[in-house]
């Protein structure tokens, strides 16, 4: 990676961290409200299915995870395993795509 790309990756990781902080708080609050409110799985699905708002929220959540986690793993691979360069970058890209695909499939399953 060039210094320019590395700097953009660093910025993307910070921006996605800020987004995750917000998403995690909303997600946890929603879960607590749902559980304490005694909602069943069917009740929850009834509210999420067809909801563009929940689809957008969790779609964004998954996107932030798919950006943040692989970049962190790339740093861990570099500093703890000494694994750097194209191989490590390719592995992190695969992890990013896998997180994105699995996450979005899950979002689609509860919102479509």
């Amino acid at each position, binding site marked *: *990676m*060039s*210094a*320019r790309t*590395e*700097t*953009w990756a*660093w*910025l993307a990781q910070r921006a996605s961290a800020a987004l995750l902080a917000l998403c995690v708080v909303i997600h946890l609050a929603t879960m607590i409200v749902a559980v304490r409110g005694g909602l069943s799985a069917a009740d929850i699905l009834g509210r999420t299915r067809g909801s563009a708002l929940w689809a957008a929220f969790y779609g964004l959540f998954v996107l932030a995870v798919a950006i943040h986690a692989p970049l962190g793993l790339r740093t861990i691979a*570099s*500093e*703890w395993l000494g694994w750097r360069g194209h191989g490590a970058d390719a592995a992190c890209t695969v992890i990013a795509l896998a997180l994105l695909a699995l996450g979005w499939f899950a979002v689609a399953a509860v919102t479509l």
Partner: protein
Amino acid sequence: MSVLEVKVWRGGADGDYRGYSVPREDAQTVLDVVTHIQRRIDPTLAYRFACRVGMCGSCAMTVNGKPRWTCRTHVAQVARDDRLEIGPLAHLPIVRDLVTDMREFFDKWARAKGEFKPTASRRDDFARVEPASPARRAVDAAIECIGCGVCYAACDVVAWNPRYLGPAALNRAWTLVNDARDGARRERVVAVAGDAGCLACHTHETCTERCPKHLAPTASIAGLKRATAFAALRGEL
């Protein structure tokens, strides 16, 4: 008279600690201890020093596990039960005994574009820099580095990432980024961006805790992170 039991690193990278008994004296520095060993016990001991007053930055060693400038470190500050362990600085190749090869440390200053690039000649008038301006104050806070290598030896990221420029080189770059007279700001910001530069810093602040001049390289590196981020957003990288 009490006696200090001192273990000193002898040999190269595959060397070992050897024990010496040194008379304990009032106001004794760690450099005094090393000098006593070399002059009174074993003249083959290799170590480096010059000014003895905390200006030259040449006498840094690892004392009881932490990097320190030895000329300004009193034995009373660091000895535990009259015992000292003195080794070469970490993260640098050992030449012999307490002497490390500082080339990589200073090469990284060059890689961080640590040299001043003037924009004026001797025929131009003096630059006028407002002493209270934020840029001048940022320079003031970071300029007194003596290049001792203590921060470099204390930094975990230097150990994990051999390409990392390190706190001292980045601190130097930050002083020049804020120097209104300097003409190489853009090249310097590019040089300190990326995985080998300021973005690799984990903000552990070990450099700031250990700096004998009480500088804060962590704050300088944070400034460089902001500068590189804005440079990326402006398309200047």
